[in-house]
């Protein structure tokens, strides 16, 4: 079979199995080694079901009635979007109960992560909690220790803010070299949502912190009773006790019925299924702030309480899941974020960091939130090395791998925010690489 015949045959298979060509079908061509592009597009247009829906023909769905209202009382994505889902890397953890799944960043638009595909991180699995049975206790060095039902909590003045949440291990598999084969796994321990809840400062005012109070212990209600010590300064700055995400109650995976969000800080400090806040005069040095989530340096010492998620960025189109389809103009997109505030600039390089061009923001720019950027590129069909480099409002410039390794070696696991490189191959496929 010659190449063209092979392509036609592939496309006919695709047309039979689905109404439309999807992103994943496009990937199938690349995977099977077809050298793409003009030929693929032409072949796609000649596939029977696609042709049947194109002008001048009236598509079938325009010649019949659709479903009634309430066919789905709670609407779900189209079945043609079913490939947009969380995925995990099985070898990372011994089971799926204390484990992590990743956000499908390559398929998402804008800066809000849909709640249903935001990455999961559990230390003892996902608890099922009836909000009627759930309570939040605030005690310790306070004048008036209290127990709040969810109804009580929701009576306090509420605040909404759009902020990212990122696991500090995001990208941690890449310290020693490129390892993961898709954006979902290199950067997907990340999401951004509009969070609604009560400022922790409001609750602390309600209970009256005693003068010697300096730290807060936050604790979850799940089997791990996940706990972290948080300095009072942060608690009084922007820590939010959250019960809603993207306009509706938190999803169970995100801590239903109530969680903490410490904007810009390690995701694990944003305790889910929150049941207890205690004010103390010193940190507690619990397992998740000593044995884990500390950063081992080459000299054998370890940094503790490394809370901030520093400025980072990544190109989301192209990426391994979104390969190039043809030479010529392409709208390159990506995401940038910083735990220290707003993103100020993002620059993009196509030659491995020799020359850079400033991208423009294509979303609103909120502090400590994902920010989307884009830039035009004329791809000549040759191999390219695509990078993005973000600068935040403090002037901090996202570092290179060489700079990060010089400062921290390769064994610190967490807080890897190096400039990332995608290699665009001549066949349009995109590969994860690291360069000198």
């Amino acid at each position, binding site marked *: 079979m010659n190449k063209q015949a092979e392509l036609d045959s592939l496309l006919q298979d695709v047309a039979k199995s689905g109404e439309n060509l999807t992103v994943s079908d496009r990937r199938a061509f690349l995977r099977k080694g077809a050298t793409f592009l003009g030929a693929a597009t032409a072949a796609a247009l000649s596939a029977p079901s696609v042709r049947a829906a194109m002008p001048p023909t009236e598509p079938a769905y325009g010649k019949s009635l659709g479903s009634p209202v309430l066919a789905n009382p709670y609407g779900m994505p189209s079945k043609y979007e079913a490939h947009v889902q969380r995925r995990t890397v099985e070898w990372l953890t011994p089971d799926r109960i204390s484990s992590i799944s990743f956000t499908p960043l390559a398929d998402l638009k804008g800066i809000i992560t849909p709640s249903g595909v935001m990455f999961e991180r559990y230390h003892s699995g996902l608890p099922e909690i009836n909000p009627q049975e759930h309570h939040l*206790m605030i*005690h310790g060095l306070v004048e008036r220790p209290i127990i709040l039902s969810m109804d009580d909590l929701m009576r306090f003045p509420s605040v909404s803010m759009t902020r990212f949440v990122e696991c500090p291990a995001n990208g941690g598999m890449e310290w020693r070299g490129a390892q993961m084969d898709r954006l979902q796994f290199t950067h997907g321990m990340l999401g951004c949502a509009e969070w609604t809840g009560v400022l922790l400062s409001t609750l602390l005012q309600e*209970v009256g912190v005693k003068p010697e109070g300096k730290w807060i*212990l936050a604790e979850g209600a799940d089997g791990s009773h996940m706990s972290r010590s948080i300095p009072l300064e942060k608690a009084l700055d922007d820590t939010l006790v959250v019960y809603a995400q993207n306009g509706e109650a938190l999803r169970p995976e995100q801590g239903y019925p109530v969680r903490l969000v410490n904007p810009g800080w390690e995701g694990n400090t944003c305790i889910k299924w929150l049941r207890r806040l205690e004010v103390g005069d010193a940190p507690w040095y619990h397992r998740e702030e000593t044995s884990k989530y500390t950063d081992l340096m080459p000299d054998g010492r370890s940094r503790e309480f490394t809370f901030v998620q520093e400025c980072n960025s990544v190109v989301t189109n192209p990426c391994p899941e979104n390969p190039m389809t043809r030479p010529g103009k392409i709208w390159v997109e990506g995401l940038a974020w910083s735990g220290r505030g707003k993103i100020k600039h993002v620059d993009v390089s196509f030659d491995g960091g020799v020359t850079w061009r400033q991208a423009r923001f294509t979303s609103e720019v909120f502090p400590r939130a994902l920010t989307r950027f884009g830039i035009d590129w004329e791809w000549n069909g040759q191999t390219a090395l695509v990078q993005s480099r973000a600068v935040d409002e*403090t002037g901090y410039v996202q570092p290179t791998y060489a700079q990060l390794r010089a400062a921290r070696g390769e064994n610190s696991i967490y807080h890897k925010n190096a400039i990332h490189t995608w290699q665009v191959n001549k066949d349009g496929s995109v590969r994860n*690489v690291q360069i000198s």
Partner: protein
Amino acid sequence: MFRSRKCNVLGAVTVLASLSLAQSVWSEPGVGHYGYGQPATEEQIAGWDIDVRPDGLGLPEGSGSVEDGEWIYEAKCASCHGTFGEGVDGYPSLAGGEGSLTDGRPHKTVGSYWNHTSTVWDYINRAMPYTAPRSLNPDEVYALTAYVLFLNDLIDYDFVMDDSNLAEVRLPNEPNFIPDQRPDTNNERCMSGCKDPASVTLVSIGPELVIEEQSIDAVIEVAAAGEAVYQQYCQLCHTSGLAGAPKIGDVVQWSTRLTKGIDTVYRHAIEGYQGEVGVMPAKGGFAQLTDDEVRASVDYMVQESQ
């Protein structure tokens, strides 16, 4: 200057901004501004206030010996953490690794990495055993803490740990924790001629692209009831082989059990069974499951193991 030095974690900006706010939370005794919720009684606080600090604050009365800990450890911990604390099938190792923190592959354990004994007590008490957290009494937690330290050669076999001496047992790596030192890089926003193009070489290449999309049909198919039960209740042991459980997907292990007939397998799963190679607690220890749910999960595992 490329970077503001004011922006470290607890830096000047945050502290200054919070000082004015901070005034407002130092409230006087009396009622809160809103008065919502109910006062927490001492008894209620005691029930949930489980945290322990390095100075021993929070430890309940109690004691446990290394010897007591050894028995409990064998029964409740060794299946995951190994007889000598070496860790099994990817579950954490608890002992060893001394002097390895500057190696290419550091081995982090209680003995080589953790900084406070209180953390061991607190973590066992809050989250262990993995499948039954909050099931140990304080004496058992003292005994297990002592045994884990014994496995690391940090205390003798005749040691008895209690609330008065725990904080005195120091871990070797305690002095090696330091505050956050970021930002610790100083990249510049160069726009052109940033490096010699000839010097740009690949130093590391990820795996060949192996993205395999599931078909849409497979993805949107609703998980069968048996699979759902399996995932929530059964998978921990039946993916790892914990306690001699037949692993899902292992044709030999499952076909051996099926020689007794599927009804026998159902009965063992529902009523519990002590076999030659392992133990199946009744319904896996989840009494709330119906018999049908257990059967459905068995069906699912059998189907996945042919």
